[in-house]
Structure formats: C-alpha cells, structure tokens
C-alpha cells in the first residue's frame, strides 16, 4: 500500500460537526492542478480555492500545486499565459474571483483551463450568501472533477451516520466531508441502519425509541416520518428499491429473521424468501433485478442473491467463513462486503465478472460499507480504541481517509445519492 502520506487536516466549520478528515495514500496518477487563490476570496473565509483544493485532494486523484503569490491576482477574465503555468508543472488551472455586492451577497466566478491542451474548459458565475460558501465551492469542485476525470464528482453529496454520546443517539446528516452536520433525529435508544431513498430526500432506518426495533421512513426537509414496519418481533435492515416506492426489510414476525418486501407507506407486506437460517441485510442491485443479502443457511454467514421478484437464492461469496453486509456498486459490477480475514473484520471487494476478491482495508473491525454514488470511494465505520470512527477507502484500495469526531462513537454511515 502506498503510504505517500500527503495529508491534510481539515476542520469542519460547523460548531456541531467537528469531524476531522485525514487522508493517507493517493491515486497512482494524480492530476497536478494549480488553484490560484480567487481574487478577493479573503472576504469569504475560508477561501473558496482552499475548499476546492481540499475537495480535489481528498479524492486522491488531484495534487494541488504550491504557488507563490501572484501579482496581480489572476481572475477568470485574465489572459492565461499557458507556457508560464506549464513551467509550474500544472496540467490544469483554476482561477476566479469573489466580489461583494451592494445587497450584502457575493458574486463568485471561475474559469477552468487545460494547460496541456491550452484551452478553456468553461466556468460558471454564482451569487450567494455567506451560508452557501461551502455548497458553492463543492459545486465548483464537482465541475473541475467532471471536466478533468470524465466522472461525476460527489462533493455536493451528503452522508448520514449515527453518533452516540453517553446514552444519547443522534442520526446526523452532513456534507460528504463531515462539515455542516445537522441532527435529524435524537433518541435515548439506538438508531441503526440508515439508508437513503433514491431521491436523497428521505431516510429509512431502525429506531429502538419504543424499546424494540421498528423501521421508519423520515423526510429530512420537514422532519415528517412514519412507521413502515412495526410487526410483532424485530423489524430491521431496510433497503430501498431503486424505484423509491418499496423497501426490503427483515422481519421476525413469522419466526426467525426473514426477508420481506413492503411498500414505503407500510402497506402490502409480503414474504420474499424462506430460509431455515437467518436472512438479513438485503440490498437491491442498482437495476432493481436482484436482492443481495446475508444468510447463514449454508452454515456460515455468506452473501447470497435472489431475483427481486422472488426465486431461488444463489450463493455469491465463497472465500472464507464469514462474509456479511453486501453493498452493490453503483455500476452493478462489484460488491463490497465485510469479511473476516485472519480474525479481523475488513472491507472486501468482489468483482462479479471474474470473481476476484480484493481486501481494501487493513483495519480490525470494519462495519457498514457504503459506496459513494460515483463508485469511487467506500465509506465505512471502524472501531479504533473501542471508539467508532468513520473512514473511507477508494474502490482500488489506494486512498484511505479517516473522519473522526472529537467526541462520541460514530457508526452506521450511509453515503447519499447524487442530487440534481
């Protein structure tokens, strides 16, 4: 594993958040990019170029170049001297400006250049209030990332996770980098298994607030929520169908943990599979055709899949005696899961086309893997010194990040979808 520890420590500005991110490792080929400070960006701290640089470097695919002070500060309107930027070893260049407006808002403009091809790749202008600084910077990062890698960036996406402090549990929603955390639900009983609806507006989760596991669907914008599954026994492990109208859930109402389908409004429950063992942790494939799940029907916990319409399950994992928590990549080609490897619980990635398995982490107790919506990174919870922290690993295992809260146990992460 590459240990080019490049790192960057980044503190979220929100008083609630305080998740710090540490990055180790990097992609094999990182694009050297010059991010000139946006002219006038000191008026909006932290500077937009600083946030964009942190975003891009966190992806492991970019390397921000150290630049000497440039006078006069370049802006999106400056004529670009490509030879000069090339001499600084930049493949790409981002320049921009921030200007206060009379109404108290700001105007931000930027332009991105391909220094090698000597061409402009475009730019955007925004007006914004101070509170949209980070959201705007993340949009600029998404623009740069997509132009230079050909893939969509995830800098404007959000994550959900559960923080436990003392006997208090909070389901929190934060930007993908842990900044701007807000509490969606607070409880004195456990909250587990949050999953984002495909439209990113709702979460399904299991809350023990009535002293038993009950599945809820919760609308983030207005806090409205409803019970989806509160049958006798346990109600657990919700998974959204790609259509957003149905969920797979695990119910013990007929004895033993078994898979069921239920409408998102709680109606129309029907059994999906029958097993002599425990079936749990369902997840739909992105095309909606398959449900992957964990089952010990064969004697040890392994990943299986079955047609979403019902039918005969097929075993998916064969290496090792403990493979659980399957998550299908957004392109449907690989699954991430937790495997027991020499007594440690680590994230593994299985290529469904050639059956190759790669172990991505070197930690001891990983849980709850969750793909970024572009499939590049996998967010997970891991236990270090008896405390749950979030970390992330790239799907090729090269880039590792750790997001640690200053206090409390952080668990059950779920990376949200792209939001248009």
């Amino acid at each position: 594993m590459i240990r080019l520890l490049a790192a960057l420590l980044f503190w979220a500005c929100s008083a609630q958040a305080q998740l710090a991110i540490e990055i180790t490792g990097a992609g094999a080929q990182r694009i050297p990019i010059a991010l000139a400070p946006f002219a006038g960006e000191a008026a909006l701290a932290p500077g937009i170029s600083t946030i964009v640089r942190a975003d891009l470097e966190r992806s492991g695919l970019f390397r921000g170049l150290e630049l000497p002070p440039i006078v006069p500060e370049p802006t999106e309107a400056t004529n670009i001297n490509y030879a000069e930027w090339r001499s600084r070893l930049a493949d790409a260049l981002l320049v921009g400006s921030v200007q206060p407006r009379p109404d108290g808002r700001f105007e931000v403009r930027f332009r991105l250049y391909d220094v090698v091809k000597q061409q402009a790749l475009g730019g955007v202008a925004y007006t914004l209030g101070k509170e949209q600084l980070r959201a705007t910077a993340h949009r600029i990062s998404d623009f740069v990332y997509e132009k230079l890698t050909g893939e969509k960036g995830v800098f404007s996406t959000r994550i959900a996770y559960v923080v436990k402090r003392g006997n208090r549990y909070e389901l929190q929603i934060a930007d993908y980098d842990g900044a701007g955390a807000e509490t969606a639900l607070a409880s004195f009983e456990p909250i587990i298994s949050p999953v984002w609806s495909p439209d990113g507006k709702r979460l399904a989760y299991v809350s023990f607030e009535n002293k038993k596991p009950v599945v809820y669907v919760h609308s983030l914008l207005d806090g409205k929520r409803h019970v989806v599954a509160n049958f006798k026994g346990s109600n657990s492990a919700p998974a959204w169908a790609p259509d957003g109208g149905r969920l797979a859930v695990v119910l013990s109402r007929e004895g033993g943990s078994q898979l069921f389908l239920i409408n998102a409004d709680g109606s129309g429950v029907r059994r999906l599979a029958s097993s002599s063992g425990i079936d749990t942790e369902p997840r739909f494939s992105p095309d909606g055709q398959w449900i992957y799940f964990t089952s010990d029907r064969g004697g040890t916990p392994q990943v299986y899949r079955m047609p979403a319409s019902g039918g005969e399950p097929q075993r998916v994992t064969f290496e090792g005696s403990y493979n659980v928590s399957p998550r299908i990549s957004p392109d449907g080609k690989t699954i991430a899961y937790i495997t027991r490897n020499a007594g440690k619980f680590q994230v593994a990635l299985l290529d469904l086309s050639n059956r190759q398995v790669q172990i991505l982490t070197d930690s001891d107790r990983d849980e709850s893997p969750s793909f970024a919506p572009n499939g590049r990174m996998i967010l997970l919870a891991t236990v270090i010194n008896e405390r749950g922290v979030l970390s992330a690993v790239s799907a090729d295992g090269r880039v590792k990040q750790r997001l640690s809260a200053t206090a409390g146990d952080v668990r059950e992460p779920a990376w949200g979808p792209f939001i248009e």
Partner: protein
Amino acid sequence: MRAVLFPLIATSLLFLGACATEPEKPAASAPVEAKPGAKPQAVESKPVARVDATGRSTGSPFAALKDPNNILSKRQIYFDYDKFEVKDEFRSLVEAHAKFLRENPSAKMLTLLGAREDQIESVSLGEEKPVCTDHSEDCYAKNRRDDMLYSGEY
C-alpha cells in the same frame, strides 16, 4: 450480522407507546443563483429538520412489578455461552412472572411459561444494548441475558 463477537439477546415485551415528535421548522435559506448569461448552476441548501424522540414512556400500572421485595421486580435471566436453557436458579423467577400474567390477562410481557401468546413479544436487540462493555467473561455473561419488560415500562 455484524462483526462483533458477543451476542446479547434481550427479550422484551411490547406495547405501543408512541413517542411524541415535534419537528422544528426548517430554516429558510436562499439558494445560490446562477448569474444570467452563465451556465445556470442552482445550488440549494438542504436544511434538515430536527426530530426529538428522547421522551420517556410512563411506568407500569402494576405496583407489584416495582416492589423491590417482590420477585416480580427481578427481570434479568442470564445464560451460559451459546446456550438458551433457563438455568435452575432462574426458574422461580420465570414461574412468578408466568403466574402474574395468568392472573392479569391484560398485562403484556415476555414469559417462557404459561402466558397467552398474544401477551408476549420477543425481540432480539443484537449487540445494541450491552449492559457491560468490558472485555471480560464476567462482562460478556452480563450481556447474555433476557430482559423482561411489561407494557408501559418501555
């Protein structure tokens, strides 16, 4: 099905004591607007309303269940590793609760002997409710337990 090692089974009875939740109004926030003439890129803030489910439900109406001198106030049954047999030392406890349920048909709870099926609900709490978090056999033994809760106690 998670990567930790110490099964804890707490069995509780169920009753519906819905907690009140009062969502707060989301804070209004202005979207970032695209500048006319530039490629429009509307950036929306995504406020999250806060729901508080920290309210506690009220206690059981049955005084005997709370009297520390009454065996009915004892609610934990401990198990040996990977075993589900009720050990002899807990039989009188189980029988006392079974008798209470037979005599109080409206009470709902878990029991192992002689209660009506509709009086009982069993729930696995997995690893979520350890009473002890040390890495010792004493501690693991405390987590291998059944808790008994009557309606109104949860």
